[in-house]
């Protein structure tokens, strides 16, 4: 159970992070400018003008996002962008047109449109306001394909954040000849932060990992998995303690025949590791199945990708075996330190 929770939840949160990164990459965002605070959602929109005046900045577009209930069954990420945002260029409109700033219009990702059964021209009510579906687009990531995009001003109004944005997404000018991209991005970060004290310029990859939703998803995933893991370890401790207790006499026989304490410990720990491995394999299967299921449910399809990296699976297997070893340590120590005479007397 613990491993399936780890595979499903941590896999989900990592896939979620990966989708954010892919979204930034496909849009060509190099840097995100945010406030130096945990919940960095109240950056002043007026910062944009100063940001755009910097020589390294090609484009700087304000954005805001939120996770909203669209129907009782379907929730989705809602992005607020300006109509001329370069990020819209990376999306392919399959029907309709882009929205206009200041208008109650939205673009729907094709997966979300399918889930909501909405077509261009139809309306959708979001938090009491009615929006017209101006267009439907195909996004390169599950995050985009399951999202709503609306004019920035509309989402600000809906979220009572007039004049505030979550971040500015920045496209840098091409790096000068002879300067490595990585060095260039670092220099740009420093220049932006120097020009805008109190703000933080983070590379897209870091922003993908550190935005509030991803941080929350990671925290929930690791927190829940850790609790499940502790419960799982206690379960294995109980199993191994019972196993050692039931085989006290057998351990006594082995000790009487000259087996050393470390050999007994090795025997019990091997069993615990195999138990962990078996549980891990079952957990991986169950977790992966759960992730696939989540990726098909309308409530979660927009934010869950069914892909799990082999590194994540190896990590899960490693955690499972390690959990077995941790759980087996005390029973193994107790078993190894049984007095042969006492152990042989055990019924």
């Amino acid at each position, binding site marked *: 159970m613990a491993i399936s929770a780890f595979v499903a939840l941590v896999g989900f949160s990592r896939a979620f992070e990966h989708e954010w990164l892919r979204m930034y990459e496909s849009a060509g965002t190099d840097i995100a400018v945010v406030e130096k605070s945990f919940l960095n959602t109240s950056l002043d929109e007026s910062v944009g003008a100063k940001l755009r005046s910097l020589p390294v900045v090609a484009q700087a577009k304000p954005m805001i996002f939120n996770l909203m209930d669209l129907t009782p069954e379907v929730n989705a990420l809602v992005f607020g962008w300006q109509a001329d945002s370069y990020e819209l260029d990376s999306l392919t409109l399959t029907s309709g047109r882009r929205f206009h700033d200041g208008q109650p219009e939205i673009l729907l990702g094709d997966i979300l449109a399918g889930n909501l059964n909405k077509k261009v021209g139809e309306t959708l009510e979001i938090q009491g306001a009615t929006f017209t579906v101006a267009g439907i687009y195909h996004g390169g990531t599950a995050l985009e394909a399951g999202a709503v995009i609306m004019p920035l001003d509309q989402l600000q109004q809906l979220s009572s954040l007039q004049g505030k944005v979550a971040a500015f997404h920045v496209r840098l000018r091409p790096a000068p000849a002879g300067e490595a991209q990585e060095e260039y991005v670092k220099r740009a970060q420093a220049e932006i932060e120097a020009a805008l004290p109190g703000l933080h310029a983070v590379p897209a990859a870091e922003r993908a990992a550190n935005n509030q939703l991803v941080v929350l998803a990671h925290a929930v995933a690791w927190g829940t998995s850790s609790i499940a893991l502790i419960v799982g370890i206690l379960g294995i401790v109980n199993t191994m303690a019972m196993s050692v207790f039931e085989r006290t*006499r*057998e351990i006594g*026989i082995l*000790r009487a*025949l*000259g087996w050393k304490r470390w050999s007994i410990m090795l025997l019990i720990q091997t069993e615990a590791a195999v138990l962990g491995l078996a549980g891990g394999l079952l957990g991986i299967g169950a977790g992966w199945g759960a992730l696939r299921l989540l990726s098909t449910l309308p409530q979660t399809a927009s934010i869950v990708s069914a892909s799990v990296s082999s590194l994540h699976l190896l990590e899960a297997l490693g955690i499972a075996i390690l959990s077995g070893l941790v759980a087996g340590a005390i029973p193994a120590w107790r078993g190894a330190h049984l007095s042969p005479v006492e152990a042989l007397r055990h019924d």
Partner: protein
Amino acid sequence: MTSPLLEVRRLCKSYDEGRIEALRGIDLSIAAGEYLAISGPSGSGKSTLLQLLGGLDTPTSGEVLFQNAALGATIDLDTYRARQVGFIFQSFYLLPTLRAIENVQVPMLAVNKDTRNRAQRAEALLRELGLEDRLNQYPNQLSAGERQRVAIARALANHPSILLADEPTGNLDSINSARIMEILTGIQKDRGMTLIVITHENEIANAAPRHIRIRDGRIES
């Protein structure tokens, strides 16, 4: 004069924070190749003495010397049990999930004998004890006499110098008892091993060349 294989000096063993005194100052010397029977009533301390001679337990005071080296101090008890001692118990103490041939190999795992040699040695011992048809049987598929013969084969696995048998015929009928004692004494003679048998059966005790009686933790005669 040759030095004894095993020597016991002022051996005491008490339990329950000294309230129960199982052995009260035993002195004993056992030569290499000797056959010794130890008898006494229940609770006399004979099994405790065997446990201390076999390195299964440590004395409260006094010492057990093997070839003039103190068990537990100079000689590691695990190594001593693995290499020098073969135990035969009244209840056989075979591992129920292992076949006869695997049970015989268990002590060899303690001395890291390689797999092929282990299997060959185990098979040879079981054949020697007339169990060639029972190699792959589990303990619950064997008769009591056969189980004790598997236990004897296991005791011989690592070529020990001492065989310690605690009531080896206690769970056997008279025919099997006689056969087991015949096997044990035969091994002692043929291999020149030291055989120490704990028994409450006078017939077995009296048949041994040397016989000591224990009562209330002391050697009576």
